[in-house]
């Protein structure tokens, strides 16, 4: 793969076999009704998708629910494997498909920072080094030893975001992270974006079309019929907006 490409997706296809409701799936069904067949509905999430994301590019993905956005991110993050086609990644990729993955409500905020940080790929030493920064960026220094279940959801997101940005990476995969949090938190996110735009490759999935238009270099529009278009942010967002 050429050096200036971060993510290369080639002829990517992914479909899921979903057991039909009422078909014999569990052992119990199979025993009770041995003649009944296991039936599946095939659901195609992505069909023959190809694109490249250049290094340092802010690349956004838009499209209606069910168009395959999340499936695409999971394929790129290595959580799913392609059915056919290829995904190639150049550099260290950190997926934020959800902020605060692995947060445990019964643990203290401090313990959760360690847990989540290590899950995201930091070593314990690195967390030791960053932990004060993380709490001060999240403005939660006074709450470090509180159980996280007593945090408001906004506080949890702030904490999670502060951990996430400490993870060194070349490629960030962001799924709807801006959909949560209050106005002030969103400002902080955007300030962070301004800082890293151009330095890191960002793959961004959002329904927030304003921020897509504002930050993206290019936009991939996934459609419900599994066709797609790639192009200039303004043009794509406008076209997409006309469909509803």
């Amino acid at each position, binding site marked *: 793969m050429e050096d200036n490409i971060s993510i290369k997706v080639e002829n990517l296809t992914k479909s899921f076999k979903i057991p039909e409701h009422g078909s014999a799936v569990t052992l119990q069904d199979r025993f009770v009704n041995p003649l009944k067949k296991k039936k599946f509905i095939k659901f195609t999430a992505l069909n023959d998708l190809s694109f490249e994301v250049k290094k340092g590019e802010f690349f956004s993905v838009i499209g209606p629910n069910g168009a395959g956005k999340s499936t695409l991110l999971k394929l790129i993050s290595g959580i799913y494997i392609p059915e056919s086609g290829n995904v190639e990644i150049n550099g260290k990729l950190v997926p934020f498909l959800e902020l605060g993955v*692995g947060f445990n409500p019964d643990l203290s905020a401090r313990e959760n920072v360690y847990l989540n940080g290590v899950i995201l790929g930091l070593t314990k030493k690195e967390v030791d080094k960053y932990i004060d920064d993380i709490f001060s960026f999240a403005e939660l220094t006074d709450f470090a030893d509180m159980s996280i279940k007593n945090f408001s959801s906004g506080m949890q997101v702030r904490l999670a975001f502060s951990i996430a940005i400490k993870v060194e990476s070349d490629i960030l995969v962001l799924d709807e992270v801006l959909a949560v949090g209050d106005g002030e938190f969103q400002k902080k996110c955007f300030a962070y974006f301004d800082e890293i735009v151009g330095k890191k490759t960002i793959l961004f999935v959002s329904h927030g079309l304003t921020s897509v238009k504002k930050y993206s270099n290019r936009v991939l529009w996934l459609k419900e019929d599994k066709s797609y278009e790639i192009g200039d942010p303004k043009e794509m967002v406008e076209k997409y907006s006309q469909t509803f």
Partner: protein
Amino acid sequence: MNNNDFDLYKQFVKTTFKMRYKGSILGFFWVLLKPFFMFLILFLIFSHMSGQAAGLTSQQYAVYLLSGLIVYTFFNEGVIWGMGSIMERAGLIVKINFKREIVVVSSLTMALINFVINLLIICIVALVLNVHLLPVSLLYVGLISITLFLALYGVSLFTSLWLVHVRDLQHIMELVLQLLFYASAVFFPVEMIPERYRFIVYYNPVARFIKAVREALIYGKITDIYFVLLCLGLAILVVLLGRLYFNKNIKKIAEYF
């Protein structure tokens, strides 16, 4: 294994450990109290009868019973926790790509920690009751523990994935383990079983491990070492095969939760 993998492993063990007993007042003591009460009940009911049948003093029967219980408990927890490990972390597995095997190892580590603590207790009990413990016996028990751990690890590499596809496995396994409890002569001497049924115990590896541990702890004798070594070899083989199977099939698992 890089640094982060090891840190992740430690975090998982730590969290599970904290969570398992969080919110209960006695917390960690439940690890000790539960087997202790089990022990007490069985001891009160069976010590006289078993002692007579096998010619054990009540001190010896205490060690006999304890060692049976803890080896069985280790096996039981290892099978159940190892098998449930992937399911338990489903929420994490569908969100982020990390080395999945860590999840299996850390669950088994929980069982191992309990086992080691229980072993220490046996040693204390044995000392208090004046049952002689030889260093070589302890070494042998160590070898048996390693063999058991590897076997559990190897098997869990298969079962943890199977459980995702066939949830019934959980219940089936619980039944099998319950049967195994009685088939392993945990609380009664083998002599109490009619002769023609003793082969059940003889062909049951868990029972043989328990027996070897007992002989070592109570009489200071190293017995059945070829069997243990054979099992160690088999366990290593199962681990190797298990890793192949696991690494091949784990990639698709996120779709099946």
